[in-house]
């Protein structure tokens, strides 16, 4: 089994004296789905944003798909990682001035230099897969939140990434829209995508995750398989968090 992401002793501090990440180590095998949970401000977003260089490290070492990143890294490895790792944000972050199709084909055409026609074909396929093919020629503002988030997933997938990062992809959605996005992610996991998912969706974690990691105050509290995490978590802090979730 190959390792997709290996993190060793990651440290990140935005303001001197406080640490958003305080010595985080973990491994994600390729094909694995890791769900990250934890209270607000525990460093979940910070962690997965270091995986593709959106946040610079202050200490420790990262190995993403064989590319090394540390506190002193240069720009070049980040570019390579970003080409191979997709990311989906809580707020979708679609480009409002581009149609859905252009949102999806922008990077394949401009970064990977694929022919426009081929990129559009692939985009339509992906939209089909997400169940929103008929939206291709609309603009982001004309879509519901759930539809926008599925476009965002399609946009990330269009680059054929080897790893997908999700930062609370359903938190900004109406409850009745959550399912359509989770279904798309479930399908992605079934197809064998390596995924790191920050989410508070217990059902999704229980059913799809291979492992659940619980964080608090910039540290990993525990990592276990979902069944044991949800029935009898080892740590007091995890149990308290779970009891508040229900």
């Amino acid at each position, binding site marked *: 089994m190959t390792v997709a992401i290996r993190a060793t002793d990651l440290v990140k501090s935005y303001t001197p004296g406080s640490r958003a990440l305080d010595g985080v180590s973990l491994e994600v095998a390729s094909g694995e789905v890791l769900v990250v949970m934890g209270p607000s401000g525990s460093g979940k977003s910070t962690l997965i944003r270091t995986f593709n260089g959106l946040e610079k490290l202050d200490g420790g070492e990262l190995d993403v798909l064989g590319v090394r990143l540390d506190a002193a890294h240069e720009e070049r490895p980040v570019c390579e990682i970003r080409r191979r790792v997709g990311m989906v944000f809580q707020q979708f972050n679609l480009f409002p001035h581009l149609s859905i199709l252009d949102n999806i084909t922008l990077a394949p055409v401009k970064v990977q230099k694929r022919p426009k026609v081929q990129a559009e074909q692939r985009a339509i396929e992906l939209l089909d897969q997400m169940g929103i093919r008929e939206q291709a020629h609309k603009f982001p503002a004309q879509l519901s939140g759930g539809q926008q988030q599925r476009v965002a997933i399609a946009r990330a997938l269009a*680059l054929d990434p080897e790893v997908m990062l999700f930062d609370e992809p359903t938190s900004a959605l109406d409850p009745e829209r959550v399912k359509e996005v989770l279904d798309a992610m479930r399908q992605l996991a079934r197809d064998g995508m390596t995924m790191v998912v920050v989410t508070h969706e217990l059902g999704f974690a229980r059913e799809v995750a291979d492992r659940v990691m619980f964080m608090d105050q910039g540290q990993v509290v525990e990592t276990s398989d979902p069944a044991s995490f949800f029935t009898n978590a080892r740590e007091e802090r995890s149990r308290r968090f779970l009891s508040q979730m229900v």
Partner: protein
Amino acid sequence: MNRWLNRSVTLVLTALIGWGVWSVLHWLLLAADWQVVVSNLPLYVVGSYPVDQRWRPLLWMIALVVLIGFTLLGPRRGPLQRWLPLIWLAMAPLGLWLVAGGMMLEPVSTRDWGGFTLTLLLTFGSGLLALPIGVLLALGRRSRLPVLRLSSTAYIELMRAVPLIAVLFFGQLLIPLFLPPGLEINRVLRAVLAFAFFAAAYIAEDVRGGLQAIPPTQREAAAVLGLSEWQSLQLVVLPQALRIALPSLTNQAVGLLQNTSLMAILGLVELLGISRSLLANPVFIGRFLEVYLWLAAVYWLACTAMALLARHLELRLDPLRSDR
């Protein structure tokens, strides 16, 4: 509002407006003499352009009017619509070629350029030049490199501190001093350059406002897709920023058109300049009001057309209303 107050305001205003209308009618019917406008129409339009060549500026202006009509009233879809922005951009070089001559056309010296033609050329030319300079200045002012940031900021702030008439005046005097000896540029080109340098500082601030309105998450989303900083700027950030800045850029364009009239003080015979020389003619002595009203109507129409066009563009660019 208090009903009595409301009524008396209406009454007073009606009386005032009535008096105004009456005196205007009185003047129009009894005192006004439109000879100064009617008999000099060609001068207002093309200045002292050679008579046998007048079709050139006229052709350009007719093309402009047709283009305005097509943009505002034409079909919303169609093959031509896609090329519309490019056609608009092409109007400046086209006008320059038609008016200046060269390349198959007989050259006409800038001394003979005048009237509304010159007003339009000054506006188009300097606007087209100022936009890219302004965008670069705005980017410079937000740059991480201190040299760029400081020099852009200094340029913008100094330029915005001085009055336009001074920039134009000193542009005429000083631009030649900064050029290599032997290289000379004519008065019209100097004016266009000075206008462009001036307008660029204001455009830069409008564009900077647009840039500031783009949330940083847009850059992040672009970065995550592997777009380089330059690509993210060009494909994601700038298109949105310019769209946000469009209303204020329109105001700048309207201002530019109005401000070309300042060249009259410096001796160019654009629309206002030609009128001043007409009013100096003893035949038309004292016909100020007729000429000024006529000019006001022309400027008002041109500025309003410009504002309408921009409003139209804004609606077309709004992703919510557009349906391609």
